[in-house]
């Protein structure tokens, strides 16, 4: 029996089912009440939570089915920020609305805590995971007309996100994921990595007893960027082993993952084919050989909301099945909801 602990975890949001799409459309057109809309969202969130709980994942997401993009709930909730025109989201055929900051953002009602209160009791024995945009990604993908530098804006965003995290953990969240996909962009620099490490550490420090993870997906960060984020004080750092392929494995070989558990994005969340077991296992073995972590999270390569709904459920089941099988074959400790 190996001392390594392995668990499975879906990285982020789920796509909307037909009934959710229709409910949101009808709400927007005025033919559905807010209550009708919330009822559909709630029941649909229960489905995606149930699929994850059924796989034994210790931490599950509510699917974020009502979020139009990762920035939107904050761009709508905070003062001095407005969602504006559309821009392509990395290399996906998906567009987000560019948040326009016209002054220092100010909080109104919390975004995460109320949903944690709604869904945490339903998720038992799993705990709820909350996912936030990393402050560097948030800043660099926004339009900054505040009159302050991007770094200062990122700090302001980080302060608000830290407060969000603190309230979410108080409400029952057991895991906090900070998404910094911008760090996989070829334009990302050592300075970006240093800022992300500093601000993510600050956010994670407000997570109380919850586990924390910095996730970088869509491609592999440059070596100097990865080296920079290794300073982040979080429990796990996640890399996308599907899209980044060999580049991410080479990073793990060269730089390791000192001081952290590692999140391995091994189930392709951007394609619909069923990932082959041997290929997934090969990635996990190569990564574990490269950096010899004590704790491993097997995850989807990114959020599941870039593929159709039925495939997102299939990928969740694959991730669960493969996690169990890999842990068994490697003689590793399998972490399951409600006990190991």
């Amino acid at each position, binding site marked *: 029996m190996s001392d390594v602990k392995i668990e499975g975890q879906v990285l982020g949001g789920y796509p909307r089912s037909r009934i959710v799409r229709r409910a949101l*459309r009808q709400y927007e057109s005025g033919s559905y009440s807010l209550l009708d809309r919330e009822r559909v969202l709630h029941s649909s969130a229960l489905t995606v939570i149930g699929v994850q709980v059924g796989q034994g994942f210790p931490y599950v997401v509510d699917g974020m089915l009502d979020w139009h*993009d990762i920035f939107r709930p904050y761009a709508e909730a905070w003062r001095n920020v407005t969602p504006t025109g559309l821009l*392509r989201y990395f290399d996906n055929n*998906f567009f987000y609305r560019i948040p326009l900051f016209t002054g220092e953002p100010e909080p109104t009602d919390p975004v995460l805590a109320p949903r944690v209160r709604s869904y945490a009791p339903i998720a038992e024995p799993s705990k709820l995971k909350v996912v936030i945009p990393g402050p560097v990604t948030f800043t660099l993908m926004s339009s900054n007309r505040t009159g302050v530098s991007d770094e200062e804006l990122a700090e302001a965003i980080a302060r608000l996100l830290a407060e969000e995290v603190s309230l979410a953990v108080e409400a029952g969240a057991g895991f906090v994921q900070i998404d910094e996909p911008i760090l996989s962009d070829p334009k990302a620099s050592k300075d970006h990595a240093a800022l992300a490490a500093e601000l993510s550490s600050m956010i994670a420090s407000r997570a109380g007893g919850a586990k924390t993870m910095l996730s970088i997906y869509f491609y592999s960060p440059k070596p100097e960027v990865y080296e920079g984020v290794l300073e982040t004080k979080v429990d796990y750092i996640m890399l996308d082993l599907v899209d980044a392929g060999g580049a991410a494995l080479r990073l793990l070989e060269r730089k390791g993952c000192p001081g952290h558990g590692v999140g391995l994005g091994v189930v392709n969340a951007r394609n619909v084919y069923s990932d082959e077991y041997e290929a997934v296992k090969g990635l996990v073995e190569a990564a574990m050989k490269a950096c010899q972590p004590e704790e491993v999270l097997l995850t989807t390569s990114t959020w599941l909301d870039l593929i*159709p709904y039925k495939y997102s459920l299939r990928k969740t089941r694959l991730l669960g099945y493969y996690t169990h099988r890999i842990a068994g074959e490697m003689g590793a400790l399998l972490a399951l909801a409600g006990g190991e």
Partner: protein
Amino acid sequence: MPGYEVPRKFPTTVVGSYPKIGPADKAIKMRRSGEIGEEEFHRIARESIRMVVEDYLWAGVDILSDGEQTREDMVVYFAERMDGYREGDWVRVFDNVYFRKPVVVGRIGWRQPMILEDWEYARSVAQGRPVKLILTGPYTMLEWSFDLHYGDRRELILDLARALRREIDAALARGAEYVQVDEPALSTRPFREEAELLKEALDIVFRGVGAKRIVHICYGELERILPYILEYPVDQFDLEMKNSGFRLLPHLKEYGYDKEIGYGVIDVHSFQVESVEEVKEAIDRLMKADIVGPEKVYIDPDCGLKRLPREIAREKLRNMVEAARLAREEW
């Protein structure tokens, strides 16, 4: 049809898409629900195409497009009309707007003309001005589809290229003068191997084509792959410049760029209308960079205008055309 002389210096053009106007949106929905067939669909959309062309003519654009009024999505439109694809399940494009991301389930093949009817209709109302034939390129088709058949990106992209070439050949037989292939997906993965994969496909798409051969690429970090794309078999790169602050110019200079350039001077993500002076300054900036002469420069927006309100799109084009006119006097 009366002839139209495209200005020798700084001709103005568009990248392709225009806000949906007239009955196009409704026609797309009716076709999708099965209320109308393909023939009726294109017949209804003619009114929209005519309105788009009228807007271009009002603004004074030299080389036009059909505004892509029948294209709900740049990939889906072609996938629905090629062999080898099936309609996919719903995937989000933005907000609560979804499209059926196509799935490759068999060998890709060209069936019959896909865009020629709209293109020919646009030509018929363009008052003699040339109309570009605009296709979604093989790399973008590859990247923005799901593949359940090939399992090999190279094989798939080459078959896509062959299918698109059949469409181009049909257009050439009908007198196409400008053929543009849109590859927005390329700059999202700015890696040498990706650029080389597209080159192989473009060799199929463009080899021996007697019309002006254009590839449109936008956003992303194009400078990373510039050395690898300069050998593409095209006459013109149509590039987004305004949105990225003309960052690419020194790189073009460094690599001795000598093809024609479609020079993006209008930010299609901004509702703020660029002034004539602003656009003229952008043109001056290119000229001062001393990369290519004015006869190799085509002035156009960064990308398609489809996400803008119609009135803003019109005003942007109008100012762009006026700035090009002023530039012709100076350069």
